[in-house]
């Protein structure tokens, strides 16, 4: 079984973000870049499938944040090798551009399964995986909470909001995972050492048969800003009974919501 896992390097969820000058992105200085929890779940599924069925688990990432460090982290978590799309032209591209680069890299490797997170924790697009599937001509299953291989078929449970569906189909397939799909393993020191010597290939667009024009974005982002600030809140005083009384008065007379 050849399994691919797509990892994006994103800011740690607890980072306090600042908008960069020009408001077309975030201030990247001082950010801790991590593999997001959604992709960590996907990685754990990929690695355990490979451990069970043999084959290879390959990590893919299109440069953003500290891609190389995060791919090394992924290799320490059990990935066999990594492919990093490293090309300045990917900087301003959009989801379809990322998907084109990933699909081209995946095609070269001939995989059976591609696992992705349900959303990247930065742009929260939920776009790239379905686009990769379309470009490869494979089916895709979104928001998967459980995944297994049954002979030459896959079986996946997808969370559709209001319903859960178990579906089946023949490989290959692209799957997007909920973070609850698997508990990521702890990284062990020897694995970190081993990861340093695992293969990490850097490819530019030309090596993937792509050009800067081919991934020119249709979607562009601007005018980043923090959400409107909330009016300063206040903590109520007194004992529990007094606070409860005061809260009800405020909700009624000041906020007018009850």
């Amino acid at each position, binding site marked *: 079984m050849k399994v691919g896992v797509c990892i994006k390097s994103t800011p740690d*969820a607890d980072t306090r*973000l600042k908008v960069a000058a020009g408001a077309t992105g*975030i201030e990247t200085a001082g950010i801790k870049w991590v593999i997001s929890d959604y992709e960590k779940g996907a990685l754990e599924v990929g690695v355990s499938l490979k451990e069970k069925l043999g084959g290879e688990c390959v990590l893919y990432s299109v440069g953003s944040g500290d891609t190389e460090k995060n791919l090394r982290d992924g290799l320490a978590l059990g990935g066999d090798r990594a492919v990093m799309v490293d090309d300045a032209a990917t900087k301003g591209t959009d*989801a*379809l551009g990322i998907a084109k680069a990933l699909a081209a890299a995946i095609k070269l490797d001939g995989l059976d399964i591609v696992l992705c997170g*349900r959303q990247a*924790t930065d*742009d*929260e*697009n*939920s*776009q790239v995986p*379905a*686009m990769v*599937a*379309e470009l490869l001509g494979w*089916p*895709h299953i*979104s*928001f998967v909470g459980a995944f297994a291989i049954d002979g030459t078929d896959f079986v996946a449970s997808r969370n*559709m*909001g*209001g*319903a*859960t*569906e*178990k*579906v*089946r*189909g023949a490989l290959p*397939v692209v799957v997007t995972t*909920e*973070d*609850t799909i698997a508990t990521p393993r702890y990284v062990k020191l020897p694995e970190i050492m081993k990861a340093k010597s695992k293969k990490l290939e850097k490819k530019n667009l030309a090596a993937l048969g792509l050009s800067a024009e081919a991934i020119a*974005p*249709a*979607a*562009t*982002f*601007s*005018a*980043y*800003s*923090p*959400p409107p600030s*909330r009016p300063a*809140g*206040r*903590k*109520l005083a007194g004992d*529990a*009974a007094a*606070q*409860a*009384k005061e*809260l*009800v008065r405020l*909700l009624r007379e000041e*906020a007018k919501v*009850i």
Partner: protein
Amino acid sequence: MSGILVLAEHEGGKFRKGAYELLGKAKELAATLGTSVSAVVLGDAPCTELGAFGAAKVYQVEADFSQYNTLQIVRALHAAVQAADPDVLLISGNYIGKDAAPRLVARLGTGQGSDCTELRVEGGAVVGRRPMYAGKLLADVKISKRPAVFTLRPNSFPQPTPAAGGAEVVKIALAADASDGRVTLVERITSQVKTANLTEAERIVAGGRALKSLEGFDTVIRPLAASIGAAAGATRAASDAGYTSHDEQIGQTGKIVNPQLYIAAGISGAIQHLAGMRTSKVIVAINKDPDAPIFEFATYGIVGDLFEVCPLLQKEFEALAKAG
């Protein structure tokens, strides 16, 4: 052709609230742009009714859509886009918007703005504004190709009022395609909880890990919610621990809610929880830790033990209800 095409989703022939929400917004945008609104409907539904909500034309794709099939839905939407040739395509940011829309966008070679909470016209084009980074930032998204595809976070816009008017229905026959069958349904489990109760609730009382048990949730959170006609919600910690069903989870991987009043009891205020409720108009936090992050977002904060505060609060609410 041109104009704005809206996917009007329905369930068994009854249009979803989200369909009207999108049509209402589309009508407003179309008026500014001086263009028209059309709708696409998958399968059997009373298409002409959509005329009352501003759709001049309804593209009805005829096929059996009784089971959710991504590949079939993408083919159907693709056929409708080819027929309508719109400048803009609007789809609700629910499962279909996250699962099928991006695949369609790749097939069309265009771009998508996901989960927009605002749409406006600027320089003759529609621009989306949307939360990113768990709601820590907002950004504008512009699409330079046709059709510009936007998915919209549910419940971002008001329900429009119907006016007089019917719609011309254009039928599109969707030929069967064996490749749709590459993914087949084994089993479908529908949730017991009516999710609309939560996502559309005006008031929510949510409980966290601090409730400690299912009983804790049932004897403290639910009665408090009932006393002001609120829906009950939970954090992931609470639903994972089995105090509630996962359908009541609020946050990045749960429901996104936007009520007038959100009471958070025994909830720390993790970024993934905030992602689902930070736009609530009034937030009340009840937490025994004065440094809990939720207080940074709370309009009113009560530092105290929820097992003591919640029943007192419930009594006050009930007294208020009695007083009328």
